């Protein structure tokens, strides 16, 4: 009974997905005239119409009952996954595509527009991040919480970087100050360079360099030889660390560069540890992670994932 139920469910999924994929393909073929590049007024008209159409679709989806919304999401997820699965697993050319002029895979030409559409959808989320930051820091300033001046600094930095970044991109030769306050011909590009090259770049590099200090304290505190295995690992770690730097290379510099003894040079042992043992371990862990990723992708695609938001009403 249960097997029969599952057979029916799987058949409905597969048939529904195939019908959805074929319907989508047919829709794309029918609508292909509107996917031709346009310029000028037609371009802006097309963008506006797309935004309005999208807003209308979103409104209609929002009005649907929760159970229907969930089914729509599950169906769209399945069709989207099915598209990429079919595109990859069906051959590039085959007699099964008998209706195509050169019997080529019908899904392959759709890869680029589908990918571009995905990028556009993700682009809508750009303002979410800026909005969230503005909200948090705005509340800090409004409530005069301790350290609210840092939030003022955020807005000043945000505005300055955005303004000068866009300004120098479109008018790099524009002069900000001709001859005032001791400045002569201060260009927008120069101000942008002060902000980005002279401020942002060193700040990022400084934070990365803090890593070295934290690594030293972590090494002092946590690397303890509690067993023989830990001892072996410690020796391997020392050799790998020394093998990357001139100090370690100097320790065995008297050994020849060629011949059997060359394998005992610090850098040779270090590269051997990295290229054999470490690589084998990484590959093994990688196999596990990839199979785990495959399983999770399968569960997401077939709506088998459970727990958290996967079972909630929309």
């Amino acid at each position, binding site marked *: 009974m249960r097997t029969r139920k599952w057979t029916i469910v799987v058949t409905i999924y597969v048939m529904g997905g195939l019908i959805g994929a074929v319907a989508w393909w047919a829709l794309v073929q029918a609508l292909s005239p509107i996917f031709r590049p346009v310029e000028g007024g037609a371009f802006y008209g097309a963008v506006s119409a797309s935004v309005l159409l999208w807003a209308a679709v979103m409104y209609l989806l929002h009005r649907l009952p929760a159970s229907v919304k969930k089914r729509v999401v599950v169906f769209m997820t399945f069709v989207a996954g099915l598209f990429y699965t079919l595109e990859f697993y069906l051959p590039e050319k085959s007699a099964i595509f008998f209706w195509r002029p050169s019997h080529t895979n019908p899904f392959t030409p759709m*890869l*680029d527009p*589908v*990918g*571009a559409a*995905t*990028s556009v959808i993700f682009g809508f989320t750009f303002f979410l991040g800026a909005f969230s930051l503005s909200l948090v820091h705005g509340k800090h300033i409004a409530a005069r919480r301790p350290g609210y001046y840092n939030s003022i600094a955020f807005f000043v930095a945000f505005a300055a970087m955005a303004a000068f970044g866009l300004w120098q991109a479109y008018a790099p030769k524009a002069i900000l100050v001709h001859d005032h306050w001791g400045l002569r011909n201060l260009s927008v590009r120069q101000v942008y360079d002060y902000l*980005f*090259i002279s401020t*942002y*770049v*060193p*700040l*990022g*590099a400084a*934070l*990365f*360099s803090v890593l*070295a*200090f934290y*690594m*030293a*304290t972590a*090494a*002092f*505190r946590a*690397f*303890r*030889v509690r067993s023989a295995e830990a001892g072996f690992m*410690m020796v391997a770690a*020392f050799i790998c*660390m*020394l093998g*990357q*730097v*001139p*100090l*370690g*290379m*100097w320790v065995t510099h008297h050994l020849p*560069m060629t011949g059997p003894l060359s394998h005992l*040079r610090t*850098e040779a042992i270090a*590269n051997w540890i*990295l*290229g054999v043992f*470490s*690589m084998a371990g*990484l*590959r093994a862990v*990688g196999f596990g992670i990839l199979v785990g990723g495959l399983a999770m992708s399968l569960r997401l695609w077939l709506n088998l994932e459970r727990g958290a938001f996967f079972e909630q009403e929309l």
Partner: protein
Amino acid sequence: MGRDSQFWSRRVIWLALAIATAAFLLVKVKAVMYVSKPARDIYDAIEAVPASKLIVISCSWAPGTIGENGPQTEALIRHCFKAGKRFAIFGFVDPAGPGLGQAIAERCQAQYGRRYGRDWVNWGFNIGGIPMIRGWAKNIPGTIKRDIFRKPITSRPVMAGIKTVRDIGLVIEITPSLSLQTWVDFIYGIYRTPIAYACTGVMGPEAFPFYDAHQIVGVLKGLAGAAEYEQLMGYEGDALKRMPAQSSAHAVVIALIVLGNILYLRARRRGEAPERRLGGS
């Protein structure tokens, strides 16, 4: 160890590391690096690129990793300039990457008599991720369209004859992340275009499965990789200058590990060693 002693021991360790590193930045010590096979393989791969093909230097790094990826980018760009190889700077992961590569190339070009547009070009940052890379492989001018100065790339003499990924002789991915996977999957995997990888030191071990499987032609690991490349090129750049400081830092970390274990063994003998909480599996 009590809270106060932990507070001060951290600061002492940081000070010791700072002094050990700064000393070798202030005192000039000549570093000699022995070049590893993965670095030499990238050198040979660049030398082997024919004149009809372009090298792509993909700057997928952000300002934070300028300490490692910066010298790597400079060494590779200098090699391309010296060997007269056409190249294009490109970015698809971090918007800042191509601009940082541009600054490095502009600084070096005069020394080798090279000029932007004639010998090299910067395609700038291109959004779109994997779909963009797939489209780029089939039609480079159609996907990239304009360079970093907003001029059509087809107007640049260096782009003559470059239409698809078959006209690319080598892609060098310079990154602190695993964006190499995109190139291996969609460019090497489909078109067998040679790929090289220049990464931060911490990502070095991740490169070896690809290198061992011949999916990438070579690896530059961190600042040491950049120093090896400078050694190969025969010039003393930032990487070689900083290697004595890195040696000193490694020595300090090794000394700290040894010291930590000595103190731990002493405390264990006295019965004072704290029980470490369960960690890992």
